[in-house]
């Protein structure tokens, strides 16, 4: 077996880069809106350098070899940055596939024995395919990170504490009340109670789709924490179907003041604070 892939690659490294660049530009019609030609060239060159440096006859058929750690690291960097820049998975995958094509084309020109060409191409295909898969996996991971960050942001923006009146806070909860969310709710509520010196807090759960025993437990915890701060906590927005379900489930909310609507909770809060809402007496003019 006389084909030395290491030699071929080293000799034609520059040609390989040119060919790959050409393929990439043809494939994506150069997304100049997302990435400049220079950046693409720099990225491509880095990857080719690392690949040529690590590839040899032996590890050619071992995609899992640790020789490729650096290559995989660069690939990961490329796909994460492309995911963030807004490239589609197809564009990102195609760009690595077109490197494979450039490599095969190069071999076709350098290897004359057909049997050897087939043999080496097969190995190269398998290796590069494994790199393509790595690219996809990292691309998805990049997207997942974006989603996780957004989840955190959503849970923060969706738990505002509103000062509805002097001494009265309202906290509309929208969405699922899981453990992480309860933590956010509780912290912002307790902080606001201290800062505003409020003595009544209304937790409105109209926007919570399901109240199971876990959610109930979280609510109960929040209520007792509020009480420890010296404030009273009212739960409002309990829809009729939720009320029936809670009863069957066996959750005991009898220790807590609950109201059907935010309006009735507010009225209750006014009474607690000895406030009265009245229509002004109609003045009769002569």
């Amino acid at each position, binding site marked *: 077996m006389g084909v030395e892939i290491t030699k071929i690659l080293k000799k034609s490294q520059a040609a390989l880069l040119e060919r790959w660049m050409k393929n990439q530009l043809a494939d994506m019609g150069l997304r100049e809106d997302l990435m400049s030609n220079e950046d693409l060239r720099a990225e491509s060159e880095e990857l080719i350098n690392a690949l040529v440096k690590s590839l040899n006859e032996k590890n050619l058929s071992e995609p899992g070899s640790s020789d490729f750690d650096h290559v995989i690291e660069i690939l990961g960097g490329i796909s994460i940055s492309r995911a963030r820049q807004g490239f589609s998975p197809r564009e990102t995958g195609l760009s690595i596939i077109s490197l494979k094509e450039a490599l095969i084309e190069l071999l076709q020109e350098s290897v004359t024995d057909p049997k050897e060409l087939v043999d080496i191409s097969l190995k190269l295909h398998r290796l590069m395919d494994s790199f393509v898969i790595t690219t996809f996996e990292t691309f998805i991971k990049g997207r997942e990170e974006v989603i996780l960050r957004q989840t955190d942001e959503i849970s923060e923006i969706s738990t505002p504490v509103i000062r509805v009146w002097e001494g009265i806070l309202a906290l509309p909860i929208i969405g699922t009340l899981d453990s992480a969310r309860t933590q956010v709710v509780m912290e912002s509520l307790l902080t606001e109670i201290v800062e505003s010196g409020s003595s009544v807090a209304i937790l409105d759960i109209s926007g919570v789709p*399901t109240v*199971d*025993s876990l959610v109930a437990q979280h609510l109960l915890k929040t209520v007792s924490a509020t009480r420890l701060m010296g404030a009273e906590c009212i739960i409002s927005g309990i829809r009729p179907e939720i009320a029936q379900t809670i009863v*069957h*489930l066996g*959750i005991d909310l009898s220790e807590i003041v609950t109201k059907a609507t935010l309006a009735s909770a507010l009225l209750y809060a006014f009474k607690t604070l000895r406030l009265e809402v009245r229509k002004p007496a109609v003045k009769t003019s002569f």
Partner: protein
Amino acid sequence: MKRILKMIATIISLNKDPMPVAREQDVVPFRNRVKEYAVKIKMGLVNQTKLITAASELVRNMLRYGGGGEVLIEVVSRGRDSGIRLTFKDDGPGIPDISLALKDGYSTGKSLGLGLPGTKRLVNEFDIKSEVGKGTKVTIIKWANG
């Protein structure tokens, strides 16, 4: 006559939809899927809420104590009634004493201990099988007009 009665009593599964549940993040999509089926068979709002809450309890148990598993969502019919059958299966540690686990307030997880007994009250049919060291299987049915 007896045979006809028996036929009416037979539960037929019209649609099977398995869904793996491995993480906390799978709970909300699972509940939404159950809701979709409940709406499809025109289950009323109160029964829907009861079913989804029961499903939520069981799926949380499966995650917390069973280490995750799979839920089979089925649309079933019995005579003129249609309903939703959910089967929760995990390969976790199992429950040593089922009748104890079904008591209100019993919890090994410092929780309210209402999940299993509450679920039983919320649904029309409830069946639990568990083997220590093997896993747990809970099956519930809620009829659309039940």
